[in-house]
């Protein structure tokens, strides 16, 4: 087994047509082991369809979907053994308790009860539901259900976890908990995470790479920085700097920095137009001049702007 990351999820020209409508159009995706990959796109872009094809729950019209080498259509059981899926609007059996629901999942995975019970306790503790383990799920709030969903997904100790809109409809506190759990999955359990969402701020916080989906095609893919550079390509980056005091000397010094094309003063904020990422140099210059640096922000790389632009362009 070599030390380099293996390909966890791979699709080759994956296509799904419903009659005339092409839901997924020749998708080529490669996710390495251990990554947190974000599938971004509006509703109806084809994200859920792609996920269903990866899991073997839907048959592709053409192309291939593979998880750790196993073909999703040919070896669905092998795929399902190593992939955990948390659908949006996840449902549980309302009359059963949290523990009983998880026990059912363990039973479906062929995990014997004596192994399942301690594992379930540990997972419930991890997601913060141990105290309500014997309460009926019918009484749970939405946030609690989502957390139970995470526990459910981890019962089989998967290598890949696919989350469809995991933070939808959850209060900000709950969102933070969910995102922490997802990051913990990735770092602690070394699980590859595929996350599908249209809530960009959250995706931005935890994803290593993202893929932007529009109308069945992936129009852009890469790390957030790379995407930013792609979209900006040609256009200068804008760095917002707030310092005090703003002296003309400082402005001149900043102007002289290699990578900075111009400096603009807008209402006490300096806008530096750069064609390279020289934030480090900017910070050093400001601090070196004796002024205090209160804000340094790279504008125009926020995922939302990238997303909206792609949307407009396509």
């Amino acid at each position: 087994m070599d030390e380099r990351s293996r390909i966890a999820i791979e699709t080759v020209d994956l296509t799904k047509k419903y009659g005339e409508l092409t839901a997924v159009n020749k998708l080529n995706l490669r996710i390495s082991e251990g990554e947190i990959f974000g599938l971004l796109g509006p509703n109806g872009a084809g994200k859920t369809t792609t996920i269903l094809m990866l899991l073997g729950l839907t048959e592709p019209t053409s192309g291939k979907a593979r998880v750790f080498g196993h073909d999703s259509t040919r070896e669905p059981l092998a795929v399902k053994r190593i992939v955990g899926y948390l659908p949006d609007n996840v449902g549980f059996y309302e009359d059963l308790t949290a523990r009983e629901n998880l026990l059912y999942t363990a039973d479906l995975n062929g995990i014997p009860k004596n192994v399942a019970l301690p594992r379930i306790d540990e997972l419930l503790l991890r997601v913060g539901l141990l105290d309500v383990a014997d309460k009926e799920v019918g009484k749970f709030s939405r946030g609690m259900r989502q957390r139970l969903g995470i526990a459910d997904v981890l019962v089989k100790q998967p290598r890949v976890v696919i989350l469809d809109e995991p933070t939808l409809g959850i209060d900000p506190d709950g969102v933070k908990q969910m995102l922490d759990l997802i990051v913990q999955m990735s770092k602690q359990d070394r699980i590859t995470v595929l996350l599908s969402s249209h809530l960009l701020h959250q995706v931005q916080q935890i994803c290593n790479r993202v893929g932007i989906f529009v109308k069945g095609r992936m129009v852009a893919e890469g790390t957030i920085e790379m995407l930013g550079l792609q979209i900006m390509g040609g256009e200068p980056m804008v760095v917002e700097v707030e310092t005090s005091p703003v002296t003309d000397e400082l402005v001149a010094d900043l102007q002289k920095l290699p990578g900075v094309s111009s400096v603009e003063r807008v209402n006490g904020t300096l806008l530096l137009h750069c064609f390279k990422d020289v934030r480090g140099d900017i910070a050093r210059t400001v601090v070196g001049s004796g002024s205090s640096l209160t804000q340094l922000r790279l504008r125009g790389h926020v995922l939302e702007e990238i997303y909206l632009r792609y949307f407009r362009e396509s």
Partner: protein
Amino acid sequence: MPGLLAVFRKEMADNFASRRFLIMFALIMLAGLSATYTAAQSIRSSVSESDPWGFVFLRLFTVSSGTLPSFVAFVGFLGPLVGLAMGFDAINGEYARGTLSRVLSNPIYRDSVINGKFLAGVATITTMLVAIALVLAGLGLRMIGIPPTPDEIYRLVFFLFIAVIYVAFWMSLAILFSILFRQSATSALAGIAFWIFFTFFISMIAATLAQALFPVNQQDPQTLVDNTNFAMAVARISPMTLYQETATTILDPSTRAFGLVKLTELIGMVASPLPLGQSLLVVWPQLVALVSETLICFGISYARFMRQEIRA
């Protein structure tokens, strides 16, 4: 088969814990108790009058005393409701609760879900009917004091087998509807519509069709025979007819034939009750028809379910 036992276990547990099951059980139990109680009371009078062959034990289940139908009739009438109640939200309920994608994302075959539910349903029905029959047999025996002969016991066992298949048919019909329709209310109503049609209307339709195709001509007795045979054949599409014919033949050994019996057939007939094997031969076609109707429903359900796209 991966997952089958897990689904089976869970569905069984759900069935026995559900209020639905309790209500059905109580209903059949009460019906059975009242039917058997009154049958036991009137059994002394009925035995001495009609045929002297005995089979007293079985009469507990087949005798109807005036106002109250017999246990067999009750099962024929209420059994479909039990079957429908067990199956009508089998699959569309899973969609409604959002559990199907989650369950199917585990390493089980999709077959396991539908097979597990069906098998659990059959097992539940069997448990229920056997339990009730045993209680009723005990009550009846206590009241009449005459123990059953081995033949009667075998016949009772066979009757239970037929009753289970009968209820299982309705359950598989309900499961089929739960796959065809997204809303459980729709599948429940479709099941009830079928039940009403096959219970109340089929005999009317059979008679009308027979009258239309084989009108009875007073001069020619053959037309009467054709008419009756056709009407009976149409009526046999209904599982209720199949159940009734099969149940009465099995539980009443003196039953030999249905419909018109020619005088020539009666000459030379040995007037005795049929042994079990012969009784079975009489109703073999009905039994096969009942089993095949159930399997057809299940087969269509299976085919449809396997091809559905599961979207939460």
